[in-house]
């Protein structure tokens, strides 16, 4: 099946710093989503982005499908950005099944 690798595994920032999270995937995808899992365990949709670039406030994402990677940018980070960020993909043959990466644990200190 498709492999999803996220980097870095851990990231520690001071409030106000910027960061880039990366997601590499091993096959073509029909769907790519970025999620934030907050400290209470809730999985929050950030982006549905199988290709192209999207922005939502301080967050933006870019997927280059031909090169099989996606990037999540967080600018001016806040303590509330802390948590785990997951990339998940649906490959061409998996009929909607999301395969998740192992996540990036982000800690933002005040």
């Amino acid at each position, binding site marked *: 099946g498709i492999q999803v690798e996220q980097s870095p595994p851990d990231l520690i920032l001071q409030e106000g710093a910027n960061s880039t999270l990366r997601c590499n995937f091993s096959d073509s995808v*029909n*769907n790519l*989503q970025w*999620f934030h899992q907050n400290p209470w*365990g*809730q*999985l929050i*949709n950030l982006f*549905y982005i199988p290709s192209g670039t999207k922005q939502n406030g301080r967050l933006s994402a870019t997927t280059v499908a031909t090169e099989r990677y996606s990037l999540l940018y967080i600018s001016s980070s806040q303590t509330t950005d802390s948590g785990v960020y*997951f990339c*998940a993909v*649906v490959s061409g043959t998996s*009929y*909607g*099944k*999301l*395969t*998740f990466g*192992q*996540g990036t644990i982000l800690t933002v200190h005040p």
Partner: protein
Amino acid sequence: DARVTQTPRHKVTEMGQEVTMRCQPILGHNTVFWYRQTMMQGLELLAYFRNRAPLDDSGMPKDRFSAEMPDATLATLKIQPSEPRDSAVYFCASGYREDTQYFGPGTRLTVL
């Protein structure tokens, strides 16, 4: 604000007991997924349905797990008998075909 709802949010039970988790997908979504999250395995798919028909349940231990959609507004995941290794957070998600999947708050299951 449409959301996926799950009940119960927390469940503590003893080994051997039956556990039933329920999910109400977002109205209009035709695809429902069950995922499990553990520290060791991360997030993994257990089963999913499209238009209430099971499409794939290869991620479930068949001897003890069962998933059903008795109607378009209810999906259930049952474990019988439960074992300590089933302790995890179980998420339900819904979507429309290949589009964005929206996750419920999860059921945190502890089997003693």
